[in-house]
């Protein structure tokens, strides 16, 4: 398990990462979110032992990151490069050797990875002969070789076509299923919703959201449901307002009403209900709102909000 505890990093007197704490379980796909300049890259660099925190601790399976643990952590930075004038298999195998694999094992693993990303026909080609998308697959392979326990990917889907995005997602799910811990830093919120169990959002170095993805969406959704099917008549008990949507409606509930009670009332009135779900805003809306409103940054206290103040669910996990 990755455990980041009260980590702070300061540059020129400014806390770029300010008392950040979170934990990621083995096999979990965890989202690290935040606007540009929030401190995500600095946080990742501390997790990968490229930078040392000024205070706080970062451990993987109870041991401080760095040293021998380096070979268990792989990082695919957002601004990434790959050796261009070498064969694909050599470019990937080199990273395997750096992680302690023998030359032969590293080459075998590189070939297997190239097969997994549909590049087996190009094993002996030079990297520079490939398209940008193909090079991106090679970069992913350099991160995946050596079966890292912790895989950190910064904007891994940028520039990929939908087929390759799907392939990346499948690969990540497969790795997650075998126990690899994955931290995904991305601005593609739909991918977070599809892939990630939980998320941490930081803004100006402070933790501003932390918890399971559905819970975060629900938290910012208000007390409402979405219904599709037949028309919703006026005067349904527990419904304060009806907003028409394409093929359905958004029902704003009264404070005392429950979604189950309103559903029962709809069915009793003979409304055809094809789908009925809590109104959870897309994560993107949550992201925008949190950043624009400065949630978690100004609570009339000095210092950042505590874990408990942020999200009890996230803190309890």
């Amino acid at each position, binding site marked *: 398990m990755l455990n980041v505890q009260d980590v702070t990093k300061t540059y020129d007197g400014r806390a770029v990462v300010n008392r950040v704490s979170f934990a990621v379980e083995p096999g979990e796909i965890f989202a690290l979110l935040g606007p540009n300049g929030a401190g995500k890259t600095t946080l990742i*660099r501390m997790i990968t032992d*490229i930078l040392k925190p000024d205070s706080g601790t970062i451990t993987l399976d109870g041991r401080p990151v760095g040293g021998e643990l380096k070979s268990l952590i792989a990082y695919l*930075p957002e*601004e990434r490069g790959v050796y261009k004038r070498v064969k694909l298999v050599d470019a990937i195998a080199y990273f395997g050797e750096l*992680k302690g694999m023998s030359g032969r094992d590293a080459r075998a693993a590189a070939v297997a990875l190239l097969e997994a990303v549909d590049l087996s026909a190009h094993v002996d080609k030079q990297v520079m002969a490939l398209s940008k998308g193909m090079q991106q697959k090679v970069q992913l392979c350099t991160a995946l070789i050596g079966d890292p326990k912790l895989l950190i990917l910064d904007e891994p889907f940028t520039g990929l076509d939908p087929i390759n995005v799907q392939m990346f997602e499948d690969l990540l799910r497969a790795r997650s299923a075998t126990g690899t811990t994955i931290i995904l830093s991305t601005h593609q919120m739909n991918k977070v919703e599809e892939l990630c169990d939980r998320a941490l959002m930081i803004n100006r170095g402070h933790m501003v959201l932390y918890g399971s993805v559905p819970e975060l969406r629900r938290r910012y959704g208000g007390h409402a449901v979405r219904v599709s099917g037949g028309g919703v008549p006026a005067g349904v008990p527990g419904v304060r307002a009806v907003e028409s949507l394409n093929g359905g409606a958004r029902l704003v509930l009264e404070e005392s009403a429950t979604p189950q009670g309103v559903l029962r009332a709809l069915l009793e009135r003979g409304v055809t209900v094809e789908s009925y779900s809590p109104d959870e805003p897309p994560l993107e809306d949550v992201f925008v709102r949190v950043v624009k409103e400065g949630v978690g940054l100004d609570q009339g206290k000095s210092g950042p909000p505590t874990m408990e103040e942020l999200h009890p669910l996230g803190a309890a996990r």
Partner: protein
Amino acid sequence: MNFHPGRAMTIARREYVTTVRRKAFLFSLLLTPAIFGLSTMMQVLGTQSAAKEALRVDSMAVVDSSGEFATAPRTLNYEVPALPGAKGGPAAPPEKRHTTIEFSPSVDSALAALRANRVQAVLVIPADYVGTGRLKRYKMKYNLISSADQRLTDRWLVGGLLHGRLDSLHAERAARPSHDVQVWTPDKSGVFELHDDKRDLLDIFVPLIFGMLLSIAIVTGGQYLLQGVSEEKESRILESLICTVSPSDLMVGKLVGLGGAGLTLVGAWLLMGSALAANAAVFMQFHPSILLLAFGLPFFLIGYLCYASLMCGIGAIASNLREAQQIALTFTMLNFVPMWAFWAIVAQPNAGTAVGLSMFPLTAPTAMMMRLAATNGGVPLWQVATSLAILATTAALAVFASSRIFRIGMLLYGKTPNLPEILRWVRQG
């Protein structure tokens, strides 16, 4: 220091293999000595040919206002040495030539003859020549090499001045007081032996070659490092790498691997050079001193470590390769300063300039190699030891500072730090 020798060696092996397999490396390996050899040969042959041509003065017009040369000889005989023949072949005999002297009544008529190529030179002797020694010479072309005929003119002047005052033999001797001089110098055991002029060539060129090779080896390895770090930073590979290995692993691996590539390059040139030199009799007379051989490798290794560490730091702070090369130019130039001071070092290898350059760390490897070669190991041992100690201390500081700069600089994109920032990195790590 978080250092893992296994990872460093993996990096070193990869850097070495990738570099020596590059086409650019093979081109350097083969083309550099070829170009160097060809240009040297063309320069030597061109210079000899130009000097020989300058001595081709079939006729010279003289305008004598002093009246001192009325009875001077009307011809001047001389010999021009032949160009060197093929190895092992008999030396070609010198070419015999003579210059006809034509007296002209006026400068105008003499210059008209020069322009019409009826004469190749004009000598104007003013009325007060004996008192002042002033002369005017006219030629269609003149430069340092083509001035070789001045000696011929001097011989004719001496012959003319003495004509009728001395017998012809003494007049000839006065005009050319020495010919075929033998110089005897003591050998190592103090016994005087006939000095071989060809040996002078060795005394001049061996220090130059040793100094140059050492400089090239150091600079080549360092430049590979500069290029490698700069390109990896620019293409953002460094960040992926240092997630897996420590900056120390990376820096040491690169220093070893690319230093090896530089050494391979120079080693191959040395082998090629030795194979060629074995055919040249003059080089067979060269027996390098133990001191030169013993200190050659340490001076290379420590000199390389010092220079390459600096290149590593520069590669890490610069935003791109071009900027890195601009910053590195100063240090590269410093490495070649002993080349510019070549004559001072060879002429007086134990004098101030030579000693100073061999103590300054960035010029020490090249300058000390040149001194050791020029004196055939005759540099005081304490000076060699002091130079090596200063160089080693500087190299240790350079490695220390560069590793700190490297660690921070490689993550800094789009902005080149200023000197105070760099110094802060070094202080704080």
